[in-house]
């Protein structure tokens, strides 16, 4: 398999081997500061990961989960509208969904800080809401972070759902209507089940990058919204506490890989490669 091997070797060397090194690092310990960690089956990094960094884990999965649900609620109707009402503008409309993602993710997020800032156009309107005081803020809140995550990854939701809706023969809903089904009933019993693979694939593709992200919370959040990505980045690149950071990464990876394996067991890997 000469054609396959260069790519496989690359992935072995620069994906699999590094992950194994990370596993090893996560079980190492540093007896004193500034001494390279040694491998010692030290599980304390894992117990610390759960005891010390539980709030960050809870926040990461909570924010990512909420962002995923919002992405479904916003993305599904849009994909459905384009697939059923787009007509000859379908490809153009799907193209428009992708256009925002040609601008750097970082710059888009910074643009949101400008839009949501205390000098921005919307904060005044927000403060008029009865339950918000005159010092209400949009920026530096958990909802700003969740909004940023939803915004930045929503195309990964819209595209797979659109692909799965495009495959549906909409004569089926006609048939359902002919047999006396209401529009909603036909949608729920025919279209929705057939588009579920797209929803599942999209959910993984939004949840995974959102759970490991640290850019959105850095720009749109505050010290109270730090996520597990923030901690891992800080531990690796600033504190240089490698064993602890490796253990945190491994926990994140194991949880997510379990989700992916369950997914691919039932639905295959096809849908993830949109």
């Amino acid at each position, binding site marked *: 398999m000469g054609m396959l091997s260069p790519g*496989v070797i690359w992935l072995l060397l620069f994906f699999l081997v590094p992950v194994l090194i990370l596993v090893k690092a996560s079980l190492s310990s540093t007896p004193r500061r500034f001494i390279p960690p040694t491998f010692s089956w030290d599980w304390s990094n894992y117990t610390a990961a759960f005891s010390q960094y539980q709030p960050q884990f809870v926040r990461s999965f909570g924010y990512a989960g909420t962002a995923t649900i919002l992405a479904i609620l916003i993305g599904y109707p849009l994909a459905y509208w384009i697939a059923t009402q787009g007509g000859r503008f*379908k490809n153009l409309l*799907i193209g428009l969904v992708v256009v925002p993602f040609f601008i*750097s993710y970082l710059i888009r997020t910074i643009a949101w800080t400008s839009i949501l800032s205390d000098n921005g156009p919307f904060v005044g309107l927000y403060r008029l809401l009865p339950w918000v005081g005159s010092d209400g803020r949009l920026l530096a809140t958990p909802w700003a972070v969740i909004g940023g995550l939803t915004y930045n990854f929503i195309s990964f939701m819209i595209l797979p759902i659109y692909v799965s809706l495009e495959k549906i023969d909409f004569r089926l809903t006609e048939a359902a209507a002919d047999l006396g089904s209401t529009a909603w009933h036909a949608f729920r019993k025919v279209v929705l089940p057939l588009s579920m693979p797209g929803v599942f694939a999209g959910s993984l593709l939004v949840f995974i990058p959102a759970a490991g*992200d640290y850019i959105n919370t850095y720009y749109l959040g505050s010290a109270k919204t730090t996520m597990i990505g923030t901690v891992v980045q800080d531990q690796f690149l600033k504190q240089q506490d490698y064993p602890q950071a490796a253990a945190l990464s491994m926990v*994140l990876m194991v949880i997510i890989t379990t989700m*992916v394996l369950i997914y691919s067991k039932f639905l295959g*890997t096809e849908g*993830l490669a*949109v």
Partner: protein
Amino acid sequence: MTMSGGAAPPVLVETPDLDAGTGGPQRIQRRWGRRVLTGFCVLVFLWLFAPLINIVAFTFNRPLGRRNLTWNEFTLENWAQPFKDVTLTSAFLRSLLVSAVAVSIALVLGSLMAIALARYRFSGSKVTEVFLVLPLTTPEIVMGASLYQLFLNRNVTLGFSTIVIAHIMFCVSFVALTVKARVRGFDWTLEDAAMDLGSSPWRTFRKVTFPLILPGILAAALLSFALSLDDYIITDFTKGEYVTFPIQVNNQFKISFPPQVNVLATMILVVSVLLLVLTSLREDRSSVVGR
């Protein structure tokens, strides 16, 4: 991420005109439902484009302080001097270089894998496919962190080459899966036919196989280039002293956010949209010829 719908499924039937004939409470209800849906989608598009409008509008802003985040007054100055900020421009050129090198290598490795996987059934092909998907479903921070550990253990100095290695890694999977999705259902007997007619294997590849997989490769190239150019997290862990565009924007954000960032971003946007339009025109034409 097949944005321009290379494999548009055949339209089986025109969407029936559900509005034909009026009356009936159900039809009216359905029409209202559709109006609400359309209104909702217009709002979603506004939301999707809000940061873009902000970015483009602020290219025409004369910033008050060092950060171009609050509207002050209209000016064309920023467009007159798009490359004024030298550190920013050079970081941008470095990013282009990283992406060009990484994507070129990933295209070769990934396309070969895609052809092998689409064409031959062999033991272990299922495992290879799962293995290919894993880099796309692993959080970037985990891949960045693990590469960082690898390079640290081997005493490799972080810089241009380590960034390129990392970018090739995630682009390979992406290219392989995108190209594979497009060559599925491709008629491989065409190759046999060419060879039966006396064509050499290399000529067969050049004249038959390559033109057929080219649209898939182009789409993969465009998308992986965009992914690589935009990458922040993996680059953060493998960069060393080599500063790419997103890293530079982040590094100087605390001190300054010059309007040239917006100008450069707007340029990327315009070029990408043009490329998108061109490739989708090309695909429309080739699909017409194909039929």
